[in-house]
């Protein structure tokens, strides 16, 4: 059967599901089987190799069971009740759903934007107000900004595009690197993502090129509706370097409760990748109802000698976070770093940490994790430092601090160390502290409100991590913490 025939057949098969109207054709009904995987691939007009890749992931997924080891609790997810494909909506459809103006937007959301210090013209766009893109254009001139970005990047030879575009325009790169860091069958959620991923970002920085800009600025203006199964692949060739920022401090609401993203990073000899995340998905209400389940697989491979990968994350949102950005240190003298602030309030549950897998000689890793718990939140750090047989003179330093606000929340630390090489030096420091009455009294006696005093202590606690964030985001991250911890004092 030729590809065209196959496509035709697929299109016909859709009718079997009773799609009659134009709009409904854009959504595949709930449930997941091979046909659905084929349909997703066909809708995205993917080449054969992508379909095969998805199918083999799907087959693998079917043999797997959902992990239960994490320190989180949630009702069973019915994977057959989820929808796995929704086409990007047309402007008309978006407009039909969009609020007419900021006056129609939930005042609480607007209040939050204000507290976060988000500029007025960005608020409308974030809240999805009708025609807000135009407004953003007017102020930002985002079309020309975008064009400048694109030109600059192209000049440097950097490829930065959506994952779908990469599949279409750079299939050889996708084929070469996809799944080489996070294999299809790596874990339950990664397998699911591999089978059904919607879209995401693709970055390729060629040999010797320092990416001329933070990829954050661009992303921040453009990222929208990235979907629940996001896939990101970043490749830095020999001597290349790139800094990428994902997410946004503004609270993002999403219809989809389950998010299962996969991010893969590949750094060749002397390459450097810095990946920063600010995550602020809807955490659920004060009683713990609703909220996003964020089950993410992020892994970077220092494939080349002297390469370096840095993960920095500020995790503030989601009802459940299950996330362990990791580094596989294959190249000799390669370096892995993980800096994390994870804050949980109300009934949020966080199980996050990292894995540092040392395989190359003289590989070094640093882990700095700051967990903050308030309300009834449960915050667990789970980290693995593995020093393989071949990793002579490997070193790791782990600093893992927990800060408790109030006495109904919990902090847990699960550090695992596996050292298979006697020359390894592994250091682990852990502290648990409370915001003390002395600190609060001291700051308040200098005129700071209770909330400001609390925020000051908390941001001091997070300083080592904030220092790793791109400047503009460090300020926003601080504001985000303040908003996340609202109502946790007094």
């Amino acid at each position, binding site marked *: 059967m030729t590809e065209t025939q196959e496509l035709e057949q697929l299109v016909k098969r859709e009718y079997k599901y009773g799609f009659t109207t134009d709009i409904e054709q854009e959504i595949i009904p709930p449930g997941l089987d091979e046909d659905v995987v084929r349909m997703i691939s066909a809708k995205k007009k993917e080449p054969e190799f992508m379909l095969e890749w998805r199918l083999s992931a799907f087959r693998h997924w079917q043999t797997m069971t959902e992990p239960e080891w994490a320190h989180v609790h949630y009702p069973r997810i019915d994977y057959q009740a989820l929808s796995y494909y929704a086409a990007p909506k047309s402007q008309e459809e978006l407009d039909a759903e969009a609020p007419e103006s900021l006056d129609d937007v939930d005042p609480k959301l607007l209040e939050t934007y204000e507290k976060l210090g988000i500029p007025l013209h960005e608020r409308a766009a974030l809240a999805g107000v009708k025609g807000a893109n135009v407004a953003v254009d007017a102020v930002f001139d985002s079309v020309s900004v975008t064009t400048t970005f694109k030109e600059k990047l192209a000049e440097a030879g950097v490829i930065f595009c959506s994952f779908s575009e990469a599949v279409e325009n750079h299939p050889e790169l996708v084929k070469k690197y996809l799944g080489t860091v996070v294999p299809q069958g790596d874990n339950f959620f990664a397998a699911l993502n591999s089978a059904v991923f919607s879209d995401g970002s693709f970055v390729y920085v060629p040999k010797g090129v320092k990416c001329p800009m933070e990829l954050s600025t661009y992303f921040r203006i453009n990222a929208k509706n990235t979907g629940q199964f996001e896939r990101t692949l970043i490749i830095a060739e020999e001597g290349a370097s790139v800094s990428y920022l994902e997410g946004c401090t503004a609270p993002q609401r999403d219809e989809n409760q389950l998010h299962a993203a996969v991010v893969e990073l590949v750094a060749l000899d002397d390459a450097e990748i810095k990946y920063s995340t600010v995550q602020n998905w809807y955490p659920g209400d004060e009683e713990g109802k609703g909220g996003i389940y964020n089950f993410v697989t992020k892994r970077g491979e220092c494939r080349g000698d002297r390469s370096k990968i840095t993960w920095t994350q500020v995790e503030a949102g989601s009802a459940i976070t299950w996330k362990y950005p990791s580094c596989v240190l294959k190249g000799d003298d390669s370096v892995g770093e993980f800096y994390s602030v994870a804050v949980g309030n109300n009934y949020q549950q966080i199980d996050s940490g990292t894995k540092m897998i040392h395989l190359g000689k003289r590989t070094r890793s640093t882990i700095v994790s700051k967990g903050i718990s308030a309300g009834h939140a449960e915050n667990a750090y789970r980290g693995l430092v593995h020093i393989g047989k071949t990793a002579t003179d490997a070193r790791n330093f782990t600093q893992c601090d927990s800060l408790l606000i109030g006495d109904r929340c919990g902090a847990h630390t699960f550090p695992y160390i596996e050292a298979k090489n006697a020359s390894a030096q592994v250091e682990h420091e852990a502290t648990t502290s409370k915001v003390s009455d002395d600190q609060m*009294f*001291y700051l308040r*006696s*200098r005129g*700071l409100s*209770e909330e400001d005093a609390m925020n*000051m202590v908390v941001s*001091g606690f997070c300083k080592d991590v904030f220092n790793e964030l791109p400047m503009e985001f460090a300020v926003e991250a601080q504001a985000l913490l303040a908003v996340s911890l609202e109502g946790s004092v007094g």
Partner: protein
Amino acid sequence: MALLEIKNLHAEIDGSEILKGIDLTVNAGEVHAIMGPNGSGKSTLCHVLGGRDGYEVTQGTITFDGHDLLEMETEERAIAGMLLGFQHPVEIPGVKNIYLLKEALNAKREAQGLEEIDTFTFMKQVRELVASMDMDDAFLHRGVNAGFSGGEKKRNEILQMLLLEPKLALLDETDSGLDIDALKVVSDGINRMRGEARGIILVTHYQRLLNYVEPDMVHVLYKGKIIKSGDKTLAHRLEAEGYQEILQEAS
């Protein structure tokens, strides 16, 4: 009208009464010294004036600059012009000293309806004060009191006072732990604050501070009560004779 008027103040911590009927009046322009043996309640009095949670006032009244102090939150007292210099300033790791100074100043300015201070003016002002305290600029960029020596912490308290220009400064043993040169620097700082519109309360164990900062009144606090008040000569007497004599006299 007195700047601070304390009448028959009784206060408890965890149900045990520490302050047992204190009367004290401080007028603008005056410097008062409070002395007394360890554990007599000097720091407790400071904390009660600062409005610390857990310090329960069971009787009495406090008026500060026309306000009913007991109705005010700690931060409101600060903004109204009270500054508490701590006997044991707490460490706040990761929060830069300069940042706290700026936030504190802006909190006050906001309450006064002023704009946030611009960074240039602020830095200039702070640098001058830091130099006047014989401190290094590096202190500004260290965590608040984090790893400061005892004497450095005390200088830092005076630095905050100089910047915030309170109406009433309550300095709890700011002279303890200072070397001789630092004592001079700190005293100079306090004397600079001294003025018509301001009141200063110095809690101290030693005459040597009072040699530099001459008090208008000296009070002896003992077991939660002021048992004797007098002029600066009272402090000389204490230094020479110790507490025994005066305690006996009072009882």
